[in-house]
């Protein structure tokens, strides 16, 4: 059930603004604050991290989006940028880092490897996309994606945060008491990780074949 929220008349708000009176909603200002201060976790897994570093430096200037504060501790981070190849040996550590981040938390999977395994997909050592174990908000294709693509992913994430309702069934995970905040860490198996994916997060898409 969704509750229709009383919306303020657009004309009245503009008129008030001309008089120096600004109005907003709690949801609007809460999300405005959150979306402009997304602190990423400082870690990189492969060559995509170089592009991520480039995006954070002067030329591409991630600071314009309020996301320049790369945190060395997951306890202080809001966003995990999975930048690079996730090997099967590294995957449990990535999931563990995600579990250690406080809610609300978001994930950008950056580059072909992080979203699908990329050029290493059939390798014995590479995970076929981090979205098999943790929920990913924005996927960026590319090998590696240019810093502009990462900025676009940031803006996409900001739009997502901006439009998150604080009440109702579509409210974000951190406002749902029963929604999981931690996800099971996979174990090392004989040839592969156990389990090979988390079915609550990822299911094999049904292939439509001729």
């Amino acid at each position, binding site marked *: 059930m969704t509750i229709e929220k009383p919306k303020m008349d657009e004309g009245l708000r503009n008129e008030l603004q001309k008089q120096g009176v600004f109005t907003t909603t709690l949801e609007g200002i809460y999300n405005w604050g959150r979306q402009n201060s997304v602190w990423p976790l400082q870690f990189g897994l492969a060559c995509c991290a170089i592009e991520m570093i480039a995006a954070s430096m002067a030329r591409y200037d991630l600071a314009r989006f309020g996301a320049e504060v790369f945190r060395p501790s997951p306890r202080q981070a809001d966003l995990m940028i999975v930048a690079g190849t996730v090997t*099967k*040996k590294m995957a449990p550590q990535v999931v563990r880092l995600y579990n250690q981040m406080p809610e609300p938390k978001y994930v950008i999977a950056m580059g072909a490897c992080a979203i699908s395994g990329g050029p290493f997909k*059939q390798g*014995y*050592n590479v995970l*076929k996309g981090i979205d098999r174990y943790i929920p990913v908000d924005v996927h960026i294709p590319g090998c590696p994606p240019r810093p502009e693509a990462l900025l676009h992913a940031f803006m996409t994430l900001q739009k997502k945060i901006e439009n998150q309702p604080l009440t109702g069934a579509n409210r974000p995970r951190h406002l749902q008491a029963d929604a999981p905040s931690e996800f099971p860490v996979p174990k*090392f*198996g*004989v*040839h*592969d990780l156990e389990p*090979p994916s988390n079915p609550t997060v990822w299911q*094999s*898409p049904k*292939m439509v074949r001729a």
Partner: protein
Amino acid sequence: METLEQIKSRITHALPGARIEIIPNDSPAGQRSLLVDADHGAAIAQFLRDDPELRLDYCSNATGVDWPEAVVKTKIKKQVIVEGVEKEIEETLETLRSGCLETVYHLYSMAKKHGPVILRLRTENRSDKNHLPSLTPVWRSCEFQEREIFDLYGIVFDGHPDLRRILMWEGFVDHPMRKDYVGPDDYDYEPTPHDDVLEKTKQHQAAEVKA
């Protein structure tokens, strides 16, 4: 630098009993290598490092090769007299090559500024007699690379100070760089399969339909 023939004769002179073979190379690079026997491997390595003429003090690279059992076809030209006329006939000879595992070391000299000399060692077979002498006591730079060879090819290095897996995790079974390695059947979602991935995807789907 001396030629491989000179190096070979000097090694056999210094270490009687050492069996050394020069492996030819038909590729454009034409870089030949020394195949030495495993029993004298460590002594030969020591000789190559300490010899005042060679001083091969730097091992830049150590890697492994898997040679599975295979039928090798070689073409030989023969002169045959057919009805009084001499003719040239091409014949293919099929020989069974026994399988083995191999390590390759690329040696340079920082002191003499020459190299590379390529050293090869082969195990007797691919299953139980897979031991080779470790050259880490001679060149310290081999340590991690020999661990990697142990991890991915399953060659056991005798005399290695710390022989454990380095890339795969503890508890991983088998050696993934061997030609006959069978990976896990995780072909559940292949958006654009082709070639052998397509075959494996079909097998996976057939197994799924049965189950």
